[in-house]
């Protein structure tokens, strides 16, 4: 059956882009669609849906769906499941693709063609893109593309997507696909072919077409745990009839000496090897590749470490120093904006809402944009060059002690600057459970928003502190966060996410020159998503918080007293009995409530509570006010112990609406962010309690 006539008549084409991770699929996607891309989510799952429109001179609309990078379609991870479902047309709102473009890494043909053979099974028209031809060339390989096309039975286009070579040919091949062989090209052992027929027949009776039935049958036959067949889309797969058939087939195969677990996989690789032996020629022998040479240094026991620590430090230094310039600039911008509004608008609630509510709130998160951009830049750079895998390789031993994945390292490290890029970076972790744990503990890595709070409290409890003392205490707080994170990870692994044997099995791609264009595009995309999501939620909640701190109003009161009588003030008073065991009074309570939106709001809220002129950038006046603050009975409020207890609270508490927003986006649900808020706040309470009461017992 040829699809060509139908194809030619269609006005709108849907093309799916499939391929292994690290095959340059995203670069191909970017080259085909330029900036006409949109990112969303598939319904009900955490997998991202990326659609773009192909740029080409023609009347037809060609939509390109960038499938998640997968090594197989065998449904072992959410990514694979989604990729498979899209190709089968099982996802509502996403049409069956008219064509599948399989991006293959030319320097790694054997494994890449495995996925191609699986996609071919489904009977969809395919174009194979042999990307990264330059790398293959550097490996001394020459590829007979004609022969490969004949062997596979599909059209093959060669590209070096990072240099935009071959893209025009690819566009042509997409719009004018050649007649292709839709018949399956590889064979199972004969006995197995025969045995599978019964199962295929049963599946066809349930409505699957022959190609899909074959593909499903293969998955079923090799599935270890038949009781887990709750795939809601094909529920009949769990039926008695099917299970019995599978049992029967396996028995027969065992008798024939065929290993039903591995036979299909081995047969595919046999077929691939057979084709490739006449297709790939090693024209010069490369004894030791550049990648190998780099790796011998970069993963060296001593040098590897040093370079690794050096790179991470560089990343950090850039974020904490270089970023401050644009951050101050943005801060000023928002202050100007607020002043401008004060000048133009009549005094009153609306004006206050704009300046103290909206601008302060939204400005508070936009100010982090430089840090976020820099982080995404570094993460993109590490990913594109291939170094990310080496970082995970080096750190895996440490991470696995906490039940984490080596790939969790960079997301967690990034969270020291800001948890948001860290959480977004956790997409690189294939296992859903590992990714979720990483996301849940990321905010425990003390982010830069906590610094103003730490600084203020440290200055309060050690009025004249040397830089060393200050740094020492800060480091303790950071350390506490790390220990907390690993502890929580371990507990989560033992409770909510049990029965998960940690799996690494991670590819280490060859080192490559990064594509600056891709990285910038990636930075832009991620930051835009952050601003959109966090911005809308922060906007709304800034208004709510401002209202809580302003209403109900009473005339003729000082700002301090107004705050006391507002809803937030009342909440603070109500909260007092709860937080007294931690050493806090209602004023700190208000600060905590304000901090719910963002940690650094604590400082500005305290300024209002203690009636400090906030135009002073200094910490001094507030610090002095803290030192003078008293309980009704005359006792000092901010004793050293209280300061530490408060800092400990801030280490553990979830106080960042932007993060909550991003977590909800990345997990595609509200369940996890809410869980995160509860567990972290609970942990903060307990830890601060232990510190304060424990300190009291010791007589401090």
């Amino acid at each position, binding site marked *: 059956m040829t699809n060509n006539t139908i194809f030619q008549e269609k006005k709108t084409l849907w093309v799916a882009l499939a391929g292994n991770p690290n095959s340059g699929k995203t670069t191909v996607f970017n080259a085909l669609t330029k900036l006409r891309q949109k990112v969303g989510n598939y319904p009900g799952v955490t997998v991202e849906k990326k659609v773009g429109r192909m740029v080409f001179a023609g009347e037809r609309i060609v939509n390109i769906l960038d499938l998640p990078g997968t090594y197989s379609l065998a449904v072992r991870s959410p990514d694979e499941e989604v990729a498979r479902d899209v190709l089968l047309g099982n996802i509502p709102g996403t049409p069956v693709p008219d064509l599948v473009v399989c991006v293959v890494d030319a320097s790694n043909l054997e*494994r890449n063609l495995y996925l191609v053979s699986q996609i071919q099974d489904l009977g969809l028209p395919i174009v194979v893109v042999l990307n990264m031809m330059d790398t293959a060339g550097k490996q001394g390989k020459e590829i007979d593309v004609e022969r490969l096309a004949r062997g596979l039975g599909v059209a093959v286009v060669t590209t070096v997507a990072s240099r935009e070579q071959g893209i025009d040919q690819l566009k042509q091949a997409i719009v004018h696909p050649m007649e292709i062989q839709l018949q399956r090209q590889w064979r199972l052992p004969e006995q197995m072919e025969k045995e599978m027929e019964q199962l295929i027949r049963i599946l066809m009776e349930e409505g699957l077409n022959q190609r899909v039935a074959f593909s499903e049958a293969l998955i079923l036959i090799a599935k270890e745990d038949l009781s887990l067949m709750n795939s809601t889309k094909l529920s009949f797969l769990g039926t008695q009839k099917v299970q019995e058939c599978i049992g029967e087939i396996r028995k027969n195969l065992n008798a024939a000496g065929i290993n039903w677990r591995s036979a299909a996989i081995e047969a595919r690789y046999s077929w691939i090897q057979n084709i490739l032996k006449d297709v790939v020629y090693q024209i010069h022998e490369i004894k030791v590749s550049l990648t190998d040479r780099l790796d011998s240094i970069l993963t060296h026991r001593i040098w590897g470490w040093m370079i690794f620590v050096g790179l991470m430090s560089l990343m950090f230094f850039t974020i904490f120093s270089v970023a401050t310039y644009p951050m101050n600039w943005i801060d000023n911008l928002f202050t100007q904006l607020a002043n401008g509004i004060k000048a133009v608008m009549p005094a009153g609630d609306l004006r206050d809402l704009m300046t103290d509510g909206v601008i302060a709130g939204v400005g508070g998160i936009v100010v982090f944009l430089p840090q976020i951009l820099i982080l995404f830049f570094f993460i993109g750079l590490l990913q594109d060059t291939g170094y990310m895998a080496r970082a995970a390789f080096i750190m895996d031993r440490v991470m696995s002690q906490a039940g984490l994945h080596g790939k969790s390292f960079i997301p967690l490290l990034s969270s020291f600057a800001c948890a948001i890029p860290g959480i977004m970076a956790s997409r690189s972790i294939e296992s859903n459970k590992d990714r979720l744990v990483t996301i849940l503990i990321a905010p425990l890595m003390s982010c830069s928003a906590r610094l103003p709070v730490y600084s203020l409290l440290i200055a309060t409890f050690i009025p004249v502190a040397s830089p060393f003392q200050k740094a020492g205490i800060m480091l303790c707080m950071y350390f506490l966060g790390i220990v907390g994170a690993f502890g929580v990870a371990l507990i989560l692994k033992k409770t909510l996410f049990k029965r998960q044997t940690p799996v*690494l*099995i991670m590819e280490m791609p060859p080192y490559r020159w990064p594509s600056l264009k891709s990285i910038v595009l990636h930075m832009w995309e991620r930051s835009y998503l952050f601003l959109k999501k966090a911005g809308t939620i922060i906007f709304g909640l800034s208004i709510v918080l401002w209202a809580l701190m302003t209403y109900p109003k009473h005339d003729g009161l000082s700002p301090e007293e107004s705050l006391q009588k507002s809803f937030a003030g009342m909440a603070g008073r109500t909260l007092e009995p709860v937080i007294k065991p931690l050493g806090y009074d209602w004023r700190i309570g208000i600060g905590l409530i304000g901090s719910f939106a963002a940690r650094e709001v604590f400082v500005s809220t305290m300024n209002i509570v203690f009636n400090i002129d906030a135009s002073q950038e200094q910490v001094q006046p507030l610090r002095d006010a803290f030192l003078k603050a008293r309980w009704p009975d005359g006792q000092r409020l901010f004793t050293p112990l209280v300061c530490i207890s408060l800092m400990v609270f801030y280490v553990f508490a979830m106080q960042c609406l932007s993060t909550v927003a991003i977590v909800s986006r990345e997990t595609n649900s509200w369940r996890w962010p809410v869980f995160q808020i509860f567990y972290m706040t609970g942990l903060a309470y307990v830890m601060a309690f232990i510190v304060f009461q424990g300190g009291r017992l010791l007589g401090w």
Partner: protein
Amino acid sequence: MNTQQSDPSHQAPIKNGDVVFLSQMSAGQKGEIVKLIGEGEIGQRLLEMGLTVGASIEVVRFAPLGDPLDIKIRGYHLSLRRHEAEAIRVRLC
């Protein structure tokens, strides 16, 4: 924990033709996969990544902390934890 290179005092001398666990091999050694003691999903994943019976495999190096290992299979590099490598039997050559 174990150091990178095999410590002769811990293992009997390994020679060509011996069948060992992948995790017992030392950096630089090559072999051919003879058996996969598949543990369900992990076993399937390893197979799909190309670690099938008969495939040539090489241990390139171990990570600075001794785990995971970097192996070369079907022309590419894959890193595996020792625990995962214990599922693979290799004949040295």
